[in-house]
């Protein structure tokens, strides 16, 4: 891209230089100033209606809205001028006169911009006489997971603009005029667009609510962890909201290169399995016909023994939900065998795009690390059950074994099962090693556009379950092939050192936004 023309200005005393055409509200972020706002959202067209972002600009008689005022050379902006503060205080008072002030029972409380800015800049008391009736409209059922509480609505129109310009399914609007206005919905439609759930995130107040999250937790009880959605191969950046070691909500996390500020409703619902209680909580080894719980030392020794004693053909069936690290380590563990590396993935016909964002859709391949598995030499085999026949060792990495029989698995002389749950078919395994799921470990996925993205640990793994990178690192160490690793970062560092396509990368460099793996690099180091 050609050099962009820079404009120099001063915001709250701080000099900033931003590209020509930037709006003041964005320029202020660079000066470390967050100008209070409601209707503005970087992912939506500017509306300029809430009038909350009014600021003083030297040499301009009137206050200007920062969301729709372009920067100009030498501009001097005062966000905290008396005049601007008074104006915002006025807006806050106006917004509250018809607001029910039902924060104690409102889901948004604690993460409500109306609350936050009122505490920050508003009046302590209203001057709206208590005898005046407030605007009242009943709660409406807008869609499968969306409730509209009109009494709390501040008519910022973010939801309307999202549906009009991003989802491009204009089925909601501002109905009526004046203080009777509310968000109306097409009489014969529901807010059931595959990406409709974003209106709940966009709503700055508790007016649009998720039924799934309704009254589930208070915002201040939640811990947020950066993660990557496991719903498909798009790799939307997300935050996992956890409360007492339970994931209660999934929300999009900004990444301009992938999902901007959005995620689809399918992805949003991918959290119940993360909390499942029917987990393997201890390492198991076969004693006769029984699997018995043992210590990690015992189980790892048994697994190492199995691997040491076998030769010839080996088969690994890995889940494309496994981390890139684990997928790599498994292959190194079995490198001296004649190896068949396979994965299976749920495929759904068709995609559900979000039209307003380029290259963003709920993809047909419903797992987050299909590209990572393919990159590391795993082949997709829907008939993976057949692959075990004649193998000396079979290893399963968190594949649920749906559709694969115990009989098929017995095709391999000895089976090692690494997983979160114990499917019936896996009961014939020699060793069962309990691993952490995506929320319980650190790791990375490669999305369909070769973007390598990290996810972080949101909660503790149950019982003795450990991250797959740790388990595999221990086994590699026992076999003197590599490892062990003290952290996922170490495991990744080994991958980066051993595989040319990951050369030069580190967890630190990946950060929270990830990076695209360069094309046409060889797996060989130094190539």
């Amino acid at each position: 891209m050609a050099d962009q023309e820079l404009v120099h200005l001063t915001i709250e005393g701080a000099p900033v230089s931003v590209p020509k055409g930037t709006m003041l509200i964005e320029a202020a972020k660079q000066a470390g100033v967050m100008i209070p706002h409601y209707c503005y959202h970087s992912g939506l067209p500017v509306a300029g209606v809430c009038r909350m972002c009014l600021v003083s600009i030297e040499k301009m008689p009137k206050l200007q809205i920062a969301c729709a005022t372009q920067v100009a050379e030498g501009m001097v902006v005062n966000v905290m001028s008396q005049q601007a503060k008074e104006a915002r205080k006025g807006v806050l008072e106006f917004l509250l006169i018809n607001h029910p002030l039902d924060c104690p029972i409102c889901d948004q409380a604690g993460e409500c911009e109306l609350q936050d800015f009122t505490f920050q800049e508003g009046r302590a008391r209203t001057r709206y006489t208590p005898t005046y009736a407030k605007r009242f409209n009943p709660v409406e059922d807008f869609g499968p997971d969306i409730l509209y509480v009109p009494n709390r609505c501040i008519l910022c129109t973010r939801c309307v603009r999202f549906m009009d310009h991003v989802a491009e399914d204009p089925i909601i609007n501002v109905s009526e005029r004046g203080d009777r206005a509310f968000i109306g919905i097409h009489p014969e439609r529901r807010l059931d667009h595959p990406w409709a759930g974003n209106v709940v995130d966009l709503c700055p107040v508790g007016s649009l609510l998720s039924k799934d999250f309704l009254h589930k937790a208070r915002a201040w009880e939640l811990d947020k962890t950066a993660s990557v959605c496991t719903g498909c191969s798009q790799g939307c950046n997300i935050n996992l909201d956890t409360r007492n070691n339970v994931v209660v909500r999934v929300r999009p996390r900004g990444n301009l290169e992938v999902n901007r500020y959005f995620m689809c409703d399918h992805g949003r619902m991918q959290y119940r399995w993360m909390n499942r209680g029917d987990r393997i909580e201890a390492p198991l080894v076969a004693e006769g016909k029984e699997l018995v719980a043992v210590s990690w030392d015992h189980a790892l020794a048994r697994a190492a023994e199995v691997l040491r004693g076998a030769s010839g053909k080996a088969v690994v069936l890995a889940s494309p939900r496994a981390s890139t690290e684990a997928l790599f380590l498994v292959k190194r563990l079995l490198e001296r065998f004649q190896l068949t590396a396979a994965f299976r993935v749920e495929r759904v016909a068709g995609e559900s795009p979000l039209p307003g964002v380029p290259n963003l859709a709920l993809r047909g391949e419903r797992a987050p690390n299909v590209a990572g598995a393919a990159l590391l030499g795993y082949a997709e085999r829907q008939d993976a059950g057949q692959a075990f026949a004649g193998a000396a060792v079979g290893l399963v990495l968190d594949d649920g074994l749906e559709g694969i029989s115990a009989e098929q698995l017995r095709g391999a002389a000895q089976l090692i099962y690494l997983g979160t749950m114990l499917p019936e078919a896996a009961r014939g395994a020699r060793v069962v090693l309990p691993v952490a799921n995506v929320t319980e470990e650190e790791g990375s996925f490669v999305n369909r556009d070769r973007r390598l993205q990290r996810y972080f640990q949101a909660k503790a793994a149950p019982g003795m379950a450990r991250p797959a990178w740790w388990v595999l690192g221990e086994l590699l160490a026992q076999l003197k092939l590599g490892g062990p690793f003290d952290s996922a970062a170490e495991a990744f560092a080994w991958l980066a050192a051993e595989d040319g396509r990951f050369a030069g990368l580190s967890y630190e460099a990946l950060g929270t936004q990830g990076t695209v793996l360069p094309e046409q690099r060889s797996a060989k180091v130094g190539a």
Partner: protein
Amino acid sequence: MGYPHQPHPKETVVLSQYFGEAEARTYDGWVKRGGYAALKKALGMEPAQVTELVKESGLRGRGGAGFPTGLKWSFMPKEKKRAHYLCCNADESEPGTFKDREIMRWTPHALIEGCAIAQYAIQAEVAYIYIRGEFTEPLRIMERALAEAYKKGTLGANAMGSGKRLDMYLHRGAGAYICGEETALMNSIEGRRGNPRIRPPFPAAAGVFGMPTTINNVETLTAVPHILNRGPAWYKGLSLSNPKSTGTKLFSISGHVKRPGNYEVTVGFPLGELVNEMAGLRDGRTLKACIPGGSSVPILNREETESCKLDYEGCVEKGTMLGSGGVIVFDDTADMVYQIMRLTRFYAHESCAQCTQCREGTAWTVRILQRILAGQGTMKDLDLLLDLSEQMTGKTICVLSDSCAAPVVSGIKKFRGEFEAYIKGARKPVLAHA
């Protein structure tokens, strides 16, 4: 002229000359009265020359803002790269204003001719006349006149044989006051909700359908043929007070007067004479207050009314605005508190609901005024009204909330005693509930 009254000798009759003459509504009747000569003349000139003439005349927008018309036209791109549009604002909805209605009722061809000239000057092939939905009779008359103009070849693909395409469409509003705001009007033409747009971009850069657009009021456009026929110097000569305000202006007088109606006077004409002599107060009554430019402008008291000169500068000098020329007269029987409440109720009803201050502030203002009228007000309420009005002024996309605040602020300033009378119980409540 003060149709349906006889013209008053002090009027300067230009635009309203044929009010009341049914024949002037027809194409032939209009041509007989010199109609379409100005258009013919304009089509023989360069578009820029036409704009220059209008600039020279000093004509200013009659819709309320008083922006110099020729200058506005000159903002249109000189080199036409995309479609240009002309919008004629015939959504006359300002309480107290009914001049455009009469222009369209009696002289539809005058408006068509004015539009056609403006269209030619700004190189717009298409003009939209956005007509207020409630104007059923003017709409019918305009439709008929437009059909005639097309039939006679005055409009169409080869307007008056000039080789130029001049198309004109009537677009009927659906009853929202806010659609008279220029950018809301454009949204409405486009089939969107009539919400004012944030500026920039201004209409000359991106107006209706995102194309360069000029929007003028009915009265403004109707004055254009006269300027072409009689020359800018003649028009410029019509000025009684300030040389920056020229021409004639129609004033719609309503309220406590004997002869309400439209009066056409040279700008700079004394408001006092218009009210007291031409419209005339009812017998035995004295003047209390007057709104000179439609309900959106600050109220004048008696002294101010009687010394106000009816031009843009003269009104500003008195702390008000010439606005649309809707003169609302209040005599000593008027209850100013009630009248102001009634005005604010209109604005609260018509707020488009976009800007917070307007959506919530207009309705709150009404509630406070109703509370005062119900005898439940406090002295603090007056300060509150003034503070809310301050919050509602100069902070929103359009000026609807400013318009709601204007009569409140000027009313409290000039008629505080009447407010206090309700608050202190000296006047009986007129509303049962707050």
